[in-house]
């Protein structure tokens, strides 16, 4: 009551703000007396001179005291001076206490180097890994898209399938959208003087693109409507990086410069600001996409800006109307029907969405490892505390409060944490480049910058970890009884308490390791399934070169391809070479309608079509199951051309008859006579069902793309990658107007087709390995502690006739039991968390028993192994020695 009265009185009498200021600044020991005196004088002044004057006086006192008070507390912190009169008062300088704690902790760590180094390294691995993965993943997870309209723009359904006819018809009829742009991948070759052609990755887009994104140029202008008209002056917009590179650091000087791109002069009209990217950070140049209202090759992707008032996430009604407009004008059929399921995905989700699960799974695994590391260090610290119980007891008896002892533990943990942050930051810096490429985030990995924020992240993670670590020993400290500790220390008795906590921590640790191990087990199974899919081509010993043709006609392009193939076939070590418009496992590619004479029931059927030189199918290792492959003699242009169909087509249309010699139509305007049937090949994605495909011989049908893929089969046992450099030179000799856009091997293409799961599997397996090592250390530590604590116990039992083998068995049992318990909890956790991986899995359920069983067995084995070492030591106990010692 009196207290309440005083508070009320106090607040009522002295102005609140200056009172708070004084309370904050006056050292704790003197706070009461100074405030009481000031209040008394305030009251006296208020009575004598009035409240206003008293208030003013009080404010002056507070404000003018602020600086001296700061100096006062600061001096006490630095010098550690405490007036004798304050010796038994609460408060006092924090810094000297902290420093003395730190000195003490340092001394303790120095005398226990194994404990110190193990703790710091364990933590550093967790902290450094987390920081490195966070740094690599940041662009994908956190950074804002560099577009003002990022929240209002979205990508249309059927990406890469829209044609120019559709776009030019719909251009002003996109209901609900302010603007819609079309774009396609458009890498270009750059010719500079006599230097070899360079490939600049980029896209070709219609004039609306930058308005849709809301991205202004750094200097000059962006593409605008009109640039994409046929016959418009050729222009280009370049990235800041490219401009800096080409302009020798002087970015604005690039404006108006003319560049020879794909053999055509283009004027640079604008430079985008630093940090701008679309659709990936790899793109460095944006050229206009001419729109021919009569072209029907589908390769455009559409991106639209919702009109004011419309929400890009809820465009359903508008899309329905757009689809109606489309259906009224165009005829759609089969799997290319654009009027089905129209959707628009917001930009962020479209550009980064596919990478999120992989990145999140990795980040989660890393966070778990950090947790395991924390548990490990906490267990180690717990062992230390127990070893120090008599010291703690003596200190408590001499007047140390538990708060004071806890404070010291925190200082020790922080010291470990900060050392770990320094080591971990170094690890992060070293592992950064490695990780940037290991994570399936493509160009974002390459553009991820190592910077000092990583150290900040490491430090924050380490300090968080330290505080987490200190929890367990603190609990033991606060629960422990002092007198018991002293008496036990004297008699060497068995410590019961604390071990339950220790066991709990090991169980947690094993459970966490189980989470990671079963997660990577799932991925391993999934990737194994993917590799087991038969792509239909022989992916060994095939080198692949993608090349862009110059500005030649289709006939010139085809002739150049044939010349290149002839040159490539001459190279030593090459058994076969061929050129094709598109090879398997690299996306859907071209397709067209199919008609079969005398079969009017077959309509609205579309098939893939592939065009290659004579040896294309054998070079790719595609078997001809019936009939024959192309021959040079087939290369005649006329009313009838030779065609090879795949088994899927033969099954569907010629189930009960021999397809050889049958006629097909559709697409080229000529009759197509079937000369052979080829086995099914994964023409699009690896996991696609076999699709209807027709193969043609180059020269009988037009080479309709300004690019070619050359494939070279080398002698068996020879690395196809070794041939790439001489193949590239041969290509330049045979066709100087061609530019190489990519050199690779079929094996690599298969790896890419297997996708992000492969890369993340490697990373997760690495993390799982790390988790297992840490888990083993944890189990070892606890079991060793358990065994040594009960040394006397064992000795007595051995003296009474227990055999060494039985002791080993009992200690091992303890370890295996803990591991088993952890595995059970881990499986429970995995059932919940593996949903994170679902999108990465193929042919494996997220609750796959085989993956779980494998992970469990590995963990159990590791648990037993880690327990065996201390168990053996316990089994060899000499009772006479132990009992004499104690």
């Amino acid at each position, binding site marked *: 009551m009196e207290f309440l009265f005083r508070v009320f009185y106090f607040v009522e009498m002295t102005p609140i703000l200056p009172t708070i200021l004084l309370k904050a600044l006056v050292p704790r020991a003197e706070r009461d007396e*100074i405030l*009481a005196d*000031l209040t008394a004088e305030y009251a006296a002044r208020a009575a004598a001179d009035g409240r206003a004057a008293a208030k003013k006086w009080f404010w002056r006192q507070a404000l003018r005291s602020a600086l*001296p*008070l700061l100096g006062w507390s600061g001096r006490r912190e630095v010098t550690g001076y405490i007036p*004798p009169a304050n010796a038994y008062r609460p408060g006092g300088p924090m810094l000297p206490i902290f420093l003395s704690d730190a000195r003490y902790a340092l001394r303790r760590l120095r005398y226990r180097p194994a404990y110190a180094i193990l703790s710091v390294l364990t933590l550093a691995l967790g902290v450094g890994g987390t920081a490195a993965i966070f740094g690599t993943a940041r662009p994908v997870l956190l950074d804002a898209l560099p577009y003002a309209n990022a929240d209002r723009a979205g990508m249309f359904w059927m990406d890469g399938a829209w044609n120019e006819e559709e776009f030019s018809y719909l251009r002003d009829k996109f209901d609900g959208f302010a603007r819609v742009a079309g774009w396609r991948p458009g890498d270009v070759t750059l010719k500079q003087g006599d230097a070899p052609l360079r490939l600049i990755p980029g896209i070709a887009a219609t004039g609306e693109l930058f308005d849709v994104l809301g991205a202004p140029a750094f200097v000059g202008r962006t593409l605008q409507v009109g640039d994409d008209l046929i016959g418009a002056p050729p222009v280009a917009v370049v990235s800041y990086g490219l401009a800096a590179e080409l302009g020798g650091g002087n970015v604005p000087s690039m404006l108006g410069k003319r560049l020879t791109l794909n053999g055509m002069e283009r004027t640079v009209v604008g430079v985008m600001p630093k940090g701008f990217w679309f659709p990936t950070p790899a793109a460095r140049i944006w050229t206009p996409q001419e729109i021919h209202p009569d072209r029907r090759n589908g390769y455009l992707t559409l991106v639209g800006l919702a009109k004011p008032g419309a929400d890009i996430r809820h465009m359903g009604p508008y899309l329905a109307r757009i689809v109606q407009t489309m259906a009224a004008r165009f005829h759609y059929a089969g799997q290319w029907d654009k009027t089905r399921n129209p959707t628009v995905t917001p930009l962020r989700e479209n550009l980064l969405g596919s990478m999120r699960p992989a990145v999140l799974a990795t980040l989660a695994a890393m966070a778990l490892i950090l947790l395991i590391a924390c548990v490990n260090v906490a267990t180690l610290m717990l062992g230390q505390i127990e070893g120090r119980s008599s010291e703690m007891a003596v200190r408590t008896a001499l007047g140390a409060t538990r708060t004071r002892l806890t404070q010291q533990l925190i200082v020790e943990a922080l010291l470990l944490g900060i050392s770990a942050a320094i080591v971990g930051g170094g690890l992060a810096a070293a592992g950064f480049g490695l990780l940037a490429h290991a994570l399936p985030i493509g160009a974002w990995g390459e553009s991820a910058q190592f910077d000092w924020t990583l150290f900040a992240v490491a430090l924050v993670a380490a300090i968080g970890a330290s505080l987490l670590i200190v929890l367990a020993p603190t609990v033991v400290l606060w629960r422990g009884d002092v007198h018991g500790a002293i008496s036990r220390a004297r008699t060497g008795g068995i410590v019961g308490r604390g071990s339950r906590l220790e066991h709990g921590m090991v169980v947690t640790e094993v459970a966490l390791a189980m989470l990671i191990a079963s997660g990577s087990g799932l991925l391993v199974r999934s990737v194994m399934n993917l590799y087991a899919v038969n792509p239909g081509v022989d992916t060994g010993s095939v080198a692949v070169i993608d090349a862009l043709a110059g500005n030649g006609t289709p006939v010139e392009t085809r002739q150049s391809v044939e010349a290149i193939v002839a040159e490539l076939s001459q190279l030593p070590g090459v058994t076969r070479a061929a050129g094709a418009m598109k090879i398997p496992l690299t996306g859907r590619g071209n397709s067209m309608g199919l008609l079969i004479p005398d079969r009017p029931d077959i309509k609205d059927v579309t098939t893939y079509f592939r065009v290659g030189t004579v040896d294309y199918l054998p070079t790719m290792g595609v078997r001809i199951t019936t009939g024959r492959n192309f021959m040079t003699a087939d290369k005649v242009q006329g009313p009838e051309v030779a065609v090879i169909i795949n088994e899927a087509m033969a099954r569907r249309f010629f189930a009960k008859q021999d397809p050889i010699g049958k006629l097909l139509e559709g697409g080229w305007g000529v009759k197509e006579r079937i000369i052979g049937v080829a086995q099914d090949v994964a023409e699009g994605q690896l996991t696609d069902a076999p699709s209807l495909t027709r193969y043609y011989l180059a020269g009988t049908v037009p080479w309709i793309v300004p690019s070619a893929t050359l494939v070279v089969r080398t002698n068996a046992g020879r690395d196809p990658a070794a041939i790439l450099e001489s193949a590239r030179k041969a290509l330049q000799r045979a066709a100087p107007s061609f530019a190489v856009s990519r050199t690779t091997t079929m094996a690599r293409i298969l790896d890419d087709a297997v996708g992000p799961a492969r890369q993340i599997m490697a990373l997760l397996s690495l993390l799982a390995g790390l988790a297992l090592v840490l888990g083993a250390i944890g189990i070892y530590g606890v079991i060793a502690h358990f065994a040594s604590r009960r040394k006397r116990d064992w000795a007595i039992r051995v003296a009474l006739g227990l055999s060494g083998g039985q002791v080993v068995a009992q200690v091992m049992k303890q370890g295996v039991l803990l591991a088993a318990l952890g595995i059970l909890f881990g499986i429970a956790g995995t059932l919940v968390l593996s949903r994170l991986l679902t999108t990465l899995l193929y042919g494996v359920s997220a609750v796959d028993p085989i993956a779980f069983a494998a992970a469990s067995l590995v963990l159990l084995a590791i648990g037993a192994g880690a327990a065996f070492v201390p168990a053996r030591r316990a089994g060899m106990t000499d009772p006479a020695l132990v009992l004499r010692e104690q």
Partner: protein
Amino acid sequence: MKLPPDLSPLGVLEEQVLVAVLRTRGEAYGMNVRREIENVTGRELAIGAVYATLDRLEAKGLVRSKRVGAEGPTRRLFELTASGARALTETNTMREKLWEGISVRVLTALGRA
């Protein structure tokens, strides 16, 4: 931490506080010291400055304090130490030497001109 007495020359506020502790002997709490200086100099003084100075003087060994009072918060009561007394004497001697031969009357006349 026990420091040897610091015998560096006193600052103006230090001197004033020491003298005030002497003048309010037996009642030399922080607040009384402040009032005493205010009364003599006629200028307002912040309590924070007084406490900070007293603490510094105690750290130098020129004053010492003990806690007194049974009711309400205890207060630090300050008194001069032998070193404090010596420091004050020295300061005073130094001042007298400094002023030797200067006539206050002449100085006042100069001030008026």
